[in-house]
């Protein structure tokens, strides 16, 4: 145990002190920061001086519509644009102002035929209508159209009711036998949990790929530099392997902690607050269950994969051969990742249910089911039990392979050769 702590410390400190670790962490933190502030900067740079686009409107051939447009525009709480009115009927003045940059664009109404609403054209310097302006214009134009078609038979409230989009409230029915949760999950809670699950799945996959590769590469490097022979005569292979795995795990956690801190700082910046609330995310709605099980599954899943990476690393003599050798595990983790990601929208599918009992897939698929689906506690526990059993089985097997593999040099041994060597070494 004491020696394992020494191995953990050495693994951790050496990786943390390495320049490559510092640089990757800094670059990633920087990317995260930039990524999180992009929406704000985009808003800042595209918004113009007053933040609102100025849209010209001439009386033209449809004074009636223009009048009504103006009326509804004034009723809007947040119009999203400013209206610049022109008395002239021709477009010359509008064109001139558009050229001069006084307005961002102007509206044109076509000729109407037999009570139909005329076509609307938005003239600007771009080939498309910006998303936000289109939405704002549409909101006003819907009302204008309703009034135009009903020709005053409806009053304002009726028109407002007619044009308002139908709201669909999502509410989840709690399972009959499920005690404790009481009422179903609200939409807000579901959304934040969706995000959490999504983040957890990606985090799991990234950690496995990054630390897993590091573990395998380190083991191979130790083997090829022959320091392994000294290590094995000083520490039991089991202590050595798990020391390395735990050391790497701590590095992974450390890195996640750094990123979490970076994200938290960025979220806390005052200019990002409105965006967060706009996305309808409420951090207080995070389900503790998801976080706790997420953490447990994360640890267990990590150890399952990490032992295999260590075993594979011990079989390879040269770093160049490593990529090919770890391909099967990479595939396995990729499969787990995609099962998780594609099941986010269908958390109760049979595929997902089955894969929660397959050890290599269960860390990802179980968290999807816990976070988004309806999973009875016994299924969670059963899945965890299968996962634990798999960890012991593969941990034991990996330790055996590790012990044998580190002494086998030359080409990568086949399964048969490995068995033979195990028998020969009496491991």
């Amino acid at each position, binding site marked *: 145990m004491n020696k394992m702590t020494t191995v953990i410390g050495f693994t951790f400190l*050496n990786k943390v002190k*390495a320049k490559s670790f510092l640089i990757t962490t800094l670059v990633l933190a920087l990317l995260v920061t930039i990524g999180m502030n992009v929406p704000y900067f985009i808003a800042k740079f595209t918004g113009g001086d007053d933040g609102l686009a100025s849209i010209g409107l001439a009386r033209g051939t449809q004074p009636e519509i223009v009048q009504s447009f103006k009326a509804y525009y004034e009723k809007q709480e947040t119009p999203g644009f400013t209206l610049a009115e022109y008395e002239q009927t021709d477009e010359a003045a509008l064109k001139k102002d558009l050229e001069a940059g006084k307005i961002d664009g102007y509206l044109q109404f076509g000729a109407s035929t037999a009570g139909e609403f005329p076509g609307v054209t938005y003239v600007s310097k771009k080939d498309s209508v910006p998303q936000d302006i289109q939405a704002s214009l549409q909101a006003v134009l819907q009302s204008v159209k309703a009034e135009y078609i009903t020709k005053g038979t409806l009053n304002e409230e009726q028109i407002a009711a007619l044009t308002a989009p139908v709201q669909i409230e999502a509410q989840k029915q709690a399972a009959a036998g499920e005690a404790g949760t009481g009422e179903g999950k609200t939409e807000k809670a579901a959304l934040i949990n969706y995000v959490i699950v999504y983040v957890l799945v990606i985090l799991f996959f990234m950690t496995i790929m990054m630390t897993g590769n590091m573990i395998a590469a380190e083991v191979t490097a130790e083997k090829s530099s022959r320091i392994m*022979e*000294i290590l094995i*005569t*000083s520490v039991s292979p089991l202590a050595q392997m798990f020391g390395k795995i735990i050391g790497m795990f701590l590095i992974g956690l450390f890195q996640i902690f750094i990123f979490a801190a970076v994200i938290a700082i960025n979220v806390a910046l005052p200019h990002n607050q409105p965006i967060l609330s706009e996305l309808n995310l409420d951090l207080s709605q995070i389900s503790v269950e998801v976080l706790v099980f997420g953490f447990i599954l994360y640890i267990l899943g990590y150890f399952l994969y990490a032992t295999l990476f260590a075993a594979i690393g011990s079989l390879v003599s040269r770093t160049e051969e490593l990529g090919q050798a770890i391909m099967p595990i990479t595939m396995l983790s990729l499969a787990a990742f995609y099962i998780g990601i594609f099941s986010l929208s269908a958390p109760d599918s049979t595929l997902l249910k089955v894969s929660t009992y397959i050890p290599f897939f269960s860390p990802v698929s179980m968290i999807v089911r816990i976070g988004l689906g309806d999973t009875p506690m016994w299924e969670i526990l059963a899945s965890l039990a299968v996962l634990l059993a798999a960890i012991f089985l593969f941990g034991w097997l990996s330790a055996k392979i590790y012990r044998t593999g580190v*002494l086998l040099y030359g080409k990568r041994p086949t399964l048969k050769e490995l068995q033979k060597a195990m028998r020969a070494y*009496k491991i």
Partner: protein
Amino acid sequence: MSKPLVLEKVVKQFGDKTAVNEISLQVEEGEIYGLLGANGAGKTTTMRMVLGLIYPDGGRILYNGKPYGSELQHLMGYLPEERGLYPKVKVSDQIIYLARLRGMSASEADKSLKYWLERFEVPEYYDKKIEELSKGNQQKMGFIAAVVHKPKIVIMDEAFSGLDPVNVELLKATVKELRDSGTSILFSTHRMEHVEELCRNITILHRSRTVLQGSLREIKKQYPREEVLLHTASEVSGLEGIAGVTGVERKERGYLIRISDVGAAKAILRTAMDQSEVEHFEIKEPTLNQIFIKEVGESHE
């Protein structure tokens, strides 16, 4: 008290190939024991068994009278043939790490490392990375890593290969120092001159079995003295005619005469003294190199 290291009829098989066949040897306290053999003779396998890396299929290995146990990890030091150190880690970091794994405290390890760096006159390597050092210096660091924790039994696989003569002498001196302080050293090499200088007892392995074993002096006695080295001021003729002389080779400063009988040496010296001034006369004992080639070469077909 029982001997630090005893091997009794140790057998190791890899599949149907026997890598080590009934090897027995004993290393005393404060002794350097030479394990010789051509490539693939079973030296490294024997050493790995001694280290507990692999287990023998037959026979037994005793350390101070006891079989292998995890407490031995602290008592043994190992210098592998290919120096095992982390290329990208500082000398101090990794040697202290290795010493701690062998049961030393960090501060003790630091002190011991500094002592050895001073001993090799390279204290400035403390903060260097292994990859920044030359090959010979890397080897010195490997040597320090093997002895830093003050082991009682040290296993050295080809300790001096790849070193320049100055460093070979330096390393030899330290190995002798270790021996004199009571460390038992099992030493493998195929450089015979090192063995002649350092070892009291040797075992020559060939194709996984012992072909020759015993104290160096005894072994040499068994082999007839077959060569006479003669340096004279001027030419000497008629050496070929002396009874017992089988061949004469002209050298830079004299002759190397092969004889079948030691008695012929007297006649050679007399002949030489009659004709010229003798500067050097020596009945050469066989070198270990010759014995080795003879033993290993004979059964080699």
